[in-house]
């Protein structure tokens, strides 16, 4: 019986693991594992005996995948990491996403430069997924500030949604064999054409498993004042789809900024969605006062959740994978900051508390009940 809440915290200096009994009163911290090496993606795989995975992105010696089979007490390298075929000409620069596949040991992995790999043996061997990695658009995608990264993988039967920065949203409806750009209504602020076929800087995509046709997207917003070719693009940053990602519409009205990185859906309510609006210039919360914003009606209106968070002089960034929500009845949100704080938002974000205040800069936070 699942009775503990487990967090994986990917940081600039390795991965940490924290866990607590279900009331979540006190979390015990272990790590860093893979010390000194940046971790951009983690996965708590709860299929069968829990396994924890972390990408270890060594700037000197290349990429590794770390795996723990003892609930995060120790990590070992898998037998190999994703790698492009030698004749491909691309070299792996980072690992941005790890997701569970359909088989017990199936894993999906999004990398930089944006490409997709699959493993059928728990990460010991990897195969390039050509339908997206060798897509006719692939050599035209451009890196965003964080690199050319495939950061979102959402599986729904034969549908696979991918988020690429910059590349946009790509959709497969045949289990990942073929993909097409699916960005109708997704704006771009850094190109003369405000609504290109592809090339958008998608920051994160989320959905609720019980409402697979509904998706939410945090796109690269902050273009309301743009006066160059193509004109201003207000409210392109927070979007919703109701047709499995074929088309998108803005739900940014009411937010203090349509720029941000993470986006989450409540585990029991597909209408409840969370974002963290940031000022586009500083990547920090408006006025130096951090807040998560919640909509309980699918983005029609928004409310500010900040009780317990600093009221001023806080200029951290919360990165695209640094916020998550657990699946307990009254779920808690968690976010990690680029200044090394890990926050918990109890009762769905109503009350915030800092769990750890001096970790390395945090790239990634995942939570599961194990």
């Amino acid at each position, binding site marked *: 019986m699942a009775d503990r809440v487990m967090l994986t915290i990917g940081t600039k200096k390795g991965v940490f693991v924290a866990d607590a009994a279900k009331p979540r009163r006190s979390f015990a911290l272990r790590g860093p594992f893979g010390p000194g090496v940046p971790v951009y993606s983690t996965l708590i795989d709860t299929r069968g005996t829990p396994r924890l995975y972390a990408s270890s992105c060594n700037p*000197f010696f290349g990429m590794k995948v770390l795996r723990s089979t003892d609930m995060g007490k120790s990590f070992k390298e898998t037998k190999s990491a994703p790698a492009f075929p030698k004749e491909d000409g691309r070299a792996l620069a980072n690992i941005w996403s790890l997701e569970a596949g359909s088989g017990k040991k199936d894993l999906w992995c999004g990398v930089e430069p944006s490409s997709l790999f699959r493993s059928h043996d728990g990460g010991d061997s990897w195969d390039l997924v050509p339908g997206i990695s060798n897509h006719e658009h692939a050599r035209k995608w451009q890196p965003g500030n964080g690199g050319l990264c495939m950061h979102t993988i959402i599986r729904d039967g034969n549908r696979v949604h991918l988020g690429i920065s910059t590349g946009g949203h790509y959709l497969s409806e045949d289990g990942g064999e073929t993909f097409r750009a699916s960005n109708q209504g997704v704006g771009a602020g850094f190109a003369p054409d405000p609504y290109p076929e592809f090339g958008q800087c998608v920051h994160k995509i989320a959905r609720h498993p019980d409402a697979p046709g509904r998706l939410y997207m945090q796109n690269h917003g902050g273009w309301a004042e743009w006066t160059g070719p193509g004109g201003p693009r207000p409210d392109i940053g927070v979007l919703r789809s109701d047709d499995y990602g074929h088309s998108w519409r803005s739900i940014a009205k009411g937010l203090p900024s349509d720029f941000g990185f993470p986006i989450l859906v409540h585990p029991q309510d597909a209408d409840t969605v969370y974002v963290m609006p940031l000022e586009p210039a500083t990547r920090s919360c408006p006025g130096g006062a951090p807040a998560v914003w919640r909509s309980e009606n699918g983005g029609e209106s928004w409310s500010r959740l900040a009780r317990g968070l600093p009221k001023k002089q806080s200029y951290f960034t919360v990165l695209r994978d640094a916020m998550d929500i657990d699946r307990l009845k009254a779920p808690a949100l968690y976010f990690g900051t680029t200044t090394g704080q890990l926050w918990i938002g109890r009762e769905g974000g109503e009350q915030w508390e800092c769990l750890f205040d001096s970790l390395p800069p945090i790239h990634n936070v995942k939570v599961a009940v194990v």
Partner: protein
Amino acid sequence: MGPIPTITMHVPGPLRAYCAGAVQLSIAACTVRAALEDLERSQSALYRNVCDETGKVRRHLNVFVNSNNVRDLEGVDTTLRPGDVITILPAVSGG
């Protein structure tokens, strides 16, 4: 053409786990490129830490022949002589 020179490759501490703890390797090779190709065949796990999938030395590593960085010589085409020592070191960078 003379005999292929035997050189020593010094393995940095963080990479010794990938070659059974060896501190140095003895390799017969005429150039740095040939030494790396030998490494790919004989120590593939170690090789993957030194070179990326395209065969290039990873961007933040420096390769020295004796006390000279191969960037200041002929790169991976630098010729080796018997007794040369290749040293692979992470670049000191950042803060």
